[in-house]
């Protein structure tokens, strides 16, 4: 797992992909930070709006970060090297997951200077909201990453992995919205409970709902497990 993590980290930072990812994330959150929090007419220390907005962008750019993790291995046959090495399948998937997650944490690290700036200017912050936001963003990102890796394991085409990743993320985002149009109660309950957005918004309001924490962690496990199953199944087919 360590070897794969190290290799993927190196691959991210020796190609433009990590830099593009970080640049887009920094730019997007930076724009909202300046417009909302540093607005001369109504500056605020409340970062919730910035975090809420960032949800939309990670939904789109995280699949770009994960698209080649599995698809390239299959296409270039380098999976033969991984799968014949004395490493478990879950070790392979976890190594890749952690690499993408660490890059994602690098992106999230931009909030450290934001918080420092706001705190030094205003001298006060609502810490529960800040922590809620950070935990929420980390969890939802982790879920998107494992979805991205899963989709990547299904195809040899990076671009297909990216597109399907975005579509799945988008569905998980919109499902809350659609739920309000569904009249049949059981279905509506299911739709609301698997939707990502309303759970995430809760975090941005500083509410640390333990079921939501468990929900996102389970999502990570489920999709990483599915990726392992895909690798396993390919050996048997």
């Amino acid at each position, binding site marked *: 797992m360590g070897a794969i993590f*190290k290799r993927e980290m190196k691959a991210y930072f020796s190609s433009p992909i990590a830099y593009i990812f970080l640049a887009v994330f920094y730019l997007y959150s930076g724009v909202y930070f300046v417009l909302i929090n540093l607005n001369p007419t109504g500056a605020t220390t409340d970062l919730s709006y910035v975090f809420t907005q960032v949800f939309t962008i990670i939904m789109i750019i995280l699949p770009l970060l994960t698209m080649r993790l599995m698809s390239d291995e299959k296409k*270039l046959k380098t999976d033969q090297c991984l799968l*014949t090495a004395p490493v478990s399948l879950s070790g392979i998937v976890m190594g890749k997951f952690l690499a993408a997650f660490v890059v994602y944490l690098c992106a999230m690290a931009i909030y450290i200077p934001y918080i420092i700036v706001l705190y030094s200017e205003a001298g006060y912050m609502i810490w529960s909201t800040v922590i809620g936001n950070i935990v929420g963003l980390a969890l939802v990102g982790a879920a998107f990453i494992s979805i991205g890796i899963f989709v990547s394991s299904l195809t040899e085409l990076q671009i297909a992995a990216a597109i399907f990743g975005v579509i799945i993320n988008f569905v998980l985002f919109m499902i809350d919205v659609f739920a309000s149009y569904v009249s049949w109660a059981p279905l509506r309950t299911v739709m609301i409970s698997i939707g990502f957005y309303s759970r995430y918004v809760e975090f941005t309001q500083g509410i640390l709902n333990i079921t939501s924490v468990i929900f996102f962690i389970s999502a990570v496990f489920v999709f990483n497990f599915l990726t392992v199953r895909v690798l396993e199944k390919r050996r*048997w*087919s």
Partner: protein
Amino acid sequence: MIEVKNLTKHYGAKKAVNDISFTVNDGEILGFLGPNGAGKSTTMNILTGYISSTDGQVLINGIDILDDPTAAKKEIGYLPELPPLYLDMTVKEYLNFIYDLKKCKIPRKAHIEDVCKLVKITDVYNRVIKNLSKGYKQRVGMAQALIGNPKILILDEPTVGLDPKQILDIRNLIKRLGKKHTVILSSHILSEIQAVCDRIVIINNGVIAADDTTENLTGRVTGVLRYTARIEGPREEIIKVIAGINGVENVTAEMEREPGAYDYEIEVKEGSDIRRELFKRMVSRNWVVLEMHSDKLTLEDIFLKITMGDEVKLGSTSVSDEDTRRELMDKVSGAVLAAEIAGQDKSEDADAQAEAENENGGEE
């Protein structure tokens, strides 16, 4: 030691490998031979745990690859048909990655250096793999298999894409490795297998067609059956004289190879050695023997015989019979094989050509 028991692999309805069993002993170099699509790579992929078998068992040094894949894989170094290289890495980064991946315990720097020296890639150590030539890539793949000093080496067509000098180097390397490691080597190039392996398993259409030592396999069908001599002198008379030698069954001379000299193809009874007698008779008449050699059946012939199944029974007749040969050639799927046979049969030029295709260079 590798034990393969009743291995079967289905791809949908197609049986890629059908109930094959063989054993490779410690320190043995086993040649795995078969035409393209015979099931060589499938078998190797199963042995290394890359894919699973539909049925059957693989034991690597007594460990079942399905029961304890991690332990079994530790014993194996695998070079797949297409070397699994990360093109964006340098050779150094790649081999270090493999070292970590295999969780090696041997001192890192010295071990990687040794492996690089062994396959001669020290001069490209800091270059990005993407920019290397095919020969170098192949050798980096070889290095990857050797990292961690695995007891068993499984090499799927290791000399593809190398130049004749490199092929020789790799062959010598494999021979040297074979003293300490158990090696399975696949190829559709017969001379390669013949040059390196102690034992040969011939696989065709997913079943084992032959499993024997190289010597036995060649011995089963050899015994010199034909001599070719290039003699300068009057053609008709020479044929008459040769035909008079005891043991000669048939003499033909078709083409004038050099001014005044023909190649005489002399078929003899099995076991008759006519060379001395031929030489004496020619000398006594002042005809000059420019060349003389015996044509043993090569692995190509054996291979064709075996993979053609019932057409020619192993060890019973010679394939030099023109009709049988043509019939065989019609059935050969690979054009290369056809070229090889044509080469042996027809002319020296074609021979050289076929051997070039063999990537052999005729050095053995």
